């Protein structure tokens, strides 16, 4: 028997937004004369889905279909300031800014509709399909397109809104570290199962099961993208990656994708994910941010699974076959722990 299976777990939390706050983001929302909306941002979509998630937030807040919203980013001449796409701040900070801008735009839209329908704006609601109607009287209705035309050409109103979201900067006490680092936290727990070859030290992923609490999954498909891809990156960090394979000695740095090791499509394993939603009081629709924290539980879960499989603790990342093999040899062979 040279291959041993083991399971390990880890649980984590992760702060949402730039540590200590002080990281504003702004958004502008405006309607064209046909009742189609543009969100202008300077935020960056690196693949995480910034454009898509802010689009849904805007549509939901305005009460219009998502197809009627387009997110335009990033242009420093047209998009208002944003601190940037990092620190899990996109959904939370930018999302809130978009929500605020969309709320303001919605206010104008409802006022304009009220004028057309000759009712009080407070008595109106949107149907999410592009119409505004009197509560309880759906036949007294006007399309957002007609509202936009009326606002622009008849009433002389701009259906637009400005939004900013800022968590005020926290001080840090030099002596105790007392501070307000974040307003909300995402959570996760992950179980990794590995197979360890005790003659070569090679570790293969067998499967992962996880639970992530994210406030709210604004778009479950985008969340799934982050969690699946992020867990892959976690495996990669755990077992493969570094530009300094002999750190702290800086020699033999990889120069290409053959030398820089990341798991290939043949190294991946099944991953079953559960998503929990405990809304953050200050998140847009309760949302936190899944983008960064998704990788974090994987690293220790894999290390703990290796211990369970062969009884060695590797406390140096990445956990290369060499480190595993050295530890097994120092221990005098694999010592599988109780199966979990």
């Amino acid at each position, binding site marked *: 028997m040279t291959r041993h299976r083991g399971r390990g777990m880890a649980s984590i939390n992760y702060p949402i937004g730039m540590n200590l706050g002080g990281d504003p983001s702004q958004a502008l929302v405006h309607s064209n004369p046909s009742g189609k909306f543009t969100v202008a941002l300077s935020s960056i979509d690196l693949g995480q889905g910034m454009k898509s998630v802010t689009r849904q937030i805007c549509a939901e807040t305005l009460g219009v279909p998502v197809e009627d919203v387009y997110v335009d980013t990033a242009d420093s001449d047209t998009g208002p300031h944003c601190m940037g796409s990092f620190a899990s701040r996109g959904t939370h900070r930018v999302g809130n800014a978009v929500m605020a801008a969309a709320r303001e735009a919605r206010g104008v839209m409802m006022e304009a509709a009220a004028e057309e329908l000759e009712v009080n704006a407070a008595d109106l609601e949107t149907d999410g399909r592009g119409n505004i109607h009197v509560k309880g009287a759906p036949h007294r209705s006007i399309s957002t397109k007609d509202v936009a035309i009326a606002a622009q050409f008849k009433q002389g109103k701009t259906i637009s809104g400005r939004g900013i979201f800022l968590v005020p900067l926290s001080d840090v006490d030099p002596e105790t570290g007392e501070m307000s680092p974040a307003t909300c936290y995402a959570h996760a727990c992950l179980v990794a199962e590995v197979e360890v070859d005790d*003659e*070569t*030290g090679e570790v293969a992923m067998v499967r992962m099961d996880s639970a992530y609490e994210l406030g709210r999954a604004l778009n479950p498909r985008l969340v799934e993208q982050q969690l699946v891809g992020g867990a892959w990156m976690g495996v990669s960090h755990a077992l*493969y990656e570094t530009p300094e*394979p*002999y750190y702290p000695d800086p*020699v*033999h*740095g*990889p*120069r290409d994708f*053959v*030398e*820089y*090791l*990341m*798991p*290939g*499509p*043949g*190294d991946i394993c099944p991953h079953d994910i559960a998503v929990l939603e405990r809304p953050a009081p200050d998140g847009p629709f309760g949302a936190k941010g899944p983008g960064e924290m998704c990788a974090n539980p994987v690293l220790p879960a894999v290390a703990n699974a290796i211990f369970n499989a062969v009884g060695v603790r590797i406390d140096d990342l990445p956990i*290369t*076959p*060499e480190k595993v*093999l050295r530890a097994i040899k120092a221990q005098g062979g694999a010592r599988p722990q109780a199966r979990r």
Partner: protein
Amino acid sequence: MSVTVKTFTSSSEAAAALSSDRSARYLGGGTLVMRALNEGDISISTVVRANDQALSRIDASGPRITLGAGVTFARILAERDLAFLHAPARSIGGPAVRNMGTVGGNLFAPSPYGDFTVALLALDATVAVQGGFGARDIPIEEFLQSRERQAGTLVLSVSCTRPASADAFRYRKVARIKPKGGSVITLAAHLPISGGRIAGARIALGSMAPTQIRARAAERALEGRSLDAPSIAAAASAASEGTSPSDNALGSAWYRREIVGVHLRRLLSGQE
């Protein structure tokens, strides 16, 4: 100054152009020369090509096979008569690299590349080269040892004897990344059996020395014996003898020495 591309219809003209110009490099599949140019290697100012059909010829009909230097790995994989070379060919790059990379280029690929050459070394291949002084055949081991001095010569083809059976030739590339990764170590073993005994054992290793090398101690442990657990164990324990692996981004010298015997044992005993 941009690069000058010289294209010839015959390999001898190309060889002449290559040997007369220190800044000239022969362009095969492009995986080495084009990369060097992309990365700003200004020592190359002339790229030499040859459209000679002979360079891409495969002769796989008889007991001795010949592969033109320009034969790609994808073409080897498409050739049923070359089944014994499919494992090493498949271990090179991804599909695009296999469509481009050539047998001749692989002979020059620096570590951690050059896996196909490990197979050729175990097969006692002969390399046909054309230099400034005409064509000649060089045993592959000699070719590899003098590779630095072969820069001005053009490889025309490689030939080797077909293994007597599928079992007689085995190949394994140990990579961290699946299905495509750089070699931690690469092993190839040619074990002709005569009267139940191994006669002419050849074991070649990649990434165990500055160039591909033969594991002569392991060969000796098998020579004249039958392929059984004791002889395999003896070969495995001798596998690292005479090797001089180095540290690189894919693994350390220590690790390579530790696992070469394990993988040789697994290869010879047919284990995963």
